[in-house]
């Protein structure tokens, strides 16, 4: 089902194409990923699990999990949320590990020299942090290449239809989608952005292994800024693997990037800003939101976001959680239950709700594999998202010339991700091109702007985390 009228978005769909899924013809629009097109066609089961052969649908829709892997044109384990649908494609659901036939493996194999690309700054990820890093480093003359594994530039900004908070300097009152466009429009000729180009490895000294045009390519850089973002947390409950249990970001991808309804009746788990904002966006897309559940005794989201939802007749149930999902091969409902002050289920409070989709918004985990490959010192700071690379005040990690920015450094708002990216980009440019008064002024401004964002009660957790990081710095 596709969304045609939307209060914020206009969906410009490409040419209509068709491909086959398990022999059945599926219509899609050019520019849609395979997983999105299948969802629009009502196909939510993409594979079956290895041991129990349980049906699986997608979960994250941004290439972080592997729940959407299918066989595409004979190649198994293709993440269908990241590959665009093409006319005549042969897509098959996959059971188990997936097999690459020997004949397929040999076909087209040819020993070739691995191509090598050189750049001054290599940036991993074209989200708010990566784009801001490129924007500011290039302004001071540094040549940047940005590698983005997804098919679109902008990271999570491309699905944020709401107006941002902060001050003018943080793009306040501008919608996330438009901030993403502003960043892209601001890039100069020093920046090259490559989409559909995942970074799969790090080699010393400062070399990245990337998959460019389906080939392994080595990127040699003087500085590397890693802005890989985060992945969504799962929640443990029976049947949490049923097709129809999606991460909040996946739901946003479907409805706000591709204009595809994620479901008709939704249960949202988690009343932090993301859960409450996405619940409101679901209403805007025409989805019924049964309730928002929050295990904590209080709502984590801003009061203004929660109030928006409440006056739209959506209940927010604090001290409530999901006990189980149920359904035959797909989500058909959930049992919800009240929790007491010791986080124990209150007997007799279980009740079933009839929903076709369950959306999880229960926190994020920084994506840190590249830092570990690079040998960066890692620290454990729960307030910043857990396992993260140690960093100095200018976002440089313990490995000289390797930087971190955005959710990969601490789970926070996109506004702070942009400032962190800006700081990393400025520092890398300063080290490459030399210091200037203008540059150090910029850095000082970014620092003050970040402090301002984090100064209020909602910044307390981040401030505590930063204090722990400061201890680790000495």
């Amino acid at each position: 089902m596709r969304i045609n009228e939307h209060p914020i978005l206009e969906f410009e769909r490409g040419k209509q194409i068709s491909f086959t899924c398990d022999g059945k013809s599926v219509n899609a629009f050019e520019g849609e990923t395979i997983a999105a097109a299948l969802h629009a066609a009502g196909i939510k089961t993409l594979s079956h699990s290895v041991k129990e052969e349980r049906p699986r649908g997608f979960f994250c829709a941004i290439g972080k999990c592997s729940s959407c892997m299918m066989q595409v044109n004979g190649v198994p384990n293709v993440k269908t949320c990241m590959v665009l649908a093409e006319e005549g494609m042969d897509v098959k659901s996959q059971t188990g590990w997936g097999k690459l036939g020997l004949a397929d493996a040999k076909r087209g194999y040819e020993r070739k020299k691995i191509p090598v690309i050189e750049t001054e700054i290599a940036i991993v990820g074209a989200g708010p942090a990566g784009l801001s890093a490129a924007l500011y480093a290039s302004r001071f003359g540094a040549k940047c290449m940005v590698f983005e594994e997804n098919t679109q530039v902008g990271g999570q900004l491309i699905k944020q239809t709401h107006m941002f908070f902060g001050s003018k300097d943080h793009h306040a009152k501008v919608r996330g989608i438009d901030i993403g466009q502003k960043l892209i429009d601001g890039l100069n000729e020093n920046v090259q952005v490559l989409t559909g180009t995942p970074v799969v490895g790090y080699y010393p000294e400062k070399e990245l292994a990337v998959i460019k045009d389906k080939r392994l390519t080595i990127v040699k850089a003087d500085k590397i800024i890693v802005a890989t973002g985060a992945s969504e947390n799962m929640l443990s409950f029976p049947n949490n693997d049923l097709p129809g249990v999606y991460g909040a970001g996946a739901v946003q991808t479907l409805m706000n990037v591709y204009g595809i309804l994620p479901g008709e009746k939704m249960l949202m788990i988690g009343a932090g800003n993301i859960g409450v904002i996405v619940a409101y966006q679901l209403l805007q897309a025409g989805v019924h939101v049964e309730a928002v559940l929050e295990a904590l005794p209080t709502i984590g989201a801003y009061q203004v976001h929660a109030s928006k939802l409440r006056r739209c007749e959506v209940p927010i149930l604090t001290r409530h959680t999901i006990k189980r999902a149920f359904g035959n091969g797909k989500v058909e409902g959930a049992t919800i239950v009240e929790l007491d002050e010791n986080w124990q289920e209150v007997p007799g409070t279980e009740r079933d709700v009839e929903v076709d989709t369950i959306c999880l918004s229960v926190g994020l985990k920084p994506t840190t594999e590249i830092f570990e490959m690079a040998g960066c010192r890692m620290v454990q700071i729960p307030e910043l998202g857990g396992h993260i690379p140690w960093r100095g005040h200018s976002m440089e990690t313990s490995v000289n010339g390797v930087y971190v920015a955005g959710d990969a450094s601490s789970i926070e708002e996109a506004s702070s991700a942009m400032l962190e990216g800006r700081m990393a980009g400025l520092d890398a440019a300063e080290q490459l091109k030399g210091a200037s008064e203008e540059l150090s002024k910029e850095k000082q401004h970014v620092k003050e702007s970040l402090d301002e964002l984090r100064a209020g009660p909602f910044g307390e957790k981040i401030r505590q985390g930063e204090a722990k990081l400061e201890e680790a710095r000495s």
Partner: protein
Amino acid sequence: MSDFLKNGYLTLDDIRQPEDARFAKGAVAVIECVQKIPCNPCSDACPKGAITMKTSINDTPDIDFSLCNGCGICVANCPGLAIFLIDKNYSETEALVGMPYEFRPLPEAEEAVTLIDRQGQVCGKGVVKKVRNTKAMDRTPIVFIAMDKDLAMTARFFRR
């Protein structure tokens, strides 16, 4: 303060209201934003300088009702959709309430609607009088609804 952290909605006790004398002069903005979040577009947008942040963007907005002329620019500039325009002087018996409305399709003038309060409960009936939707408002139109004067500080949304 009410239990908004637990249930998500404000009550009248949480909200700073203009005096009756100011209400008697016509449309005025009422800001329903009580938490210290980093945000200040309302104060940037106000052409009369009526909305100020005490020291930082983390303060709650402070509105001087005597300076507010009810223009409504702040309504579409509020990222939290937390500002409403209240005109208790609309007619002898009715008030006109302007609400930010980010849904489609937009209502038409003279459409009858069911009014909803802050906690999502039906509280009465109203009639849409006009929809303001300019380019500068960037997809946050204001729907103006005539309703019983008593509902002016109660109704905050509507059902078609």
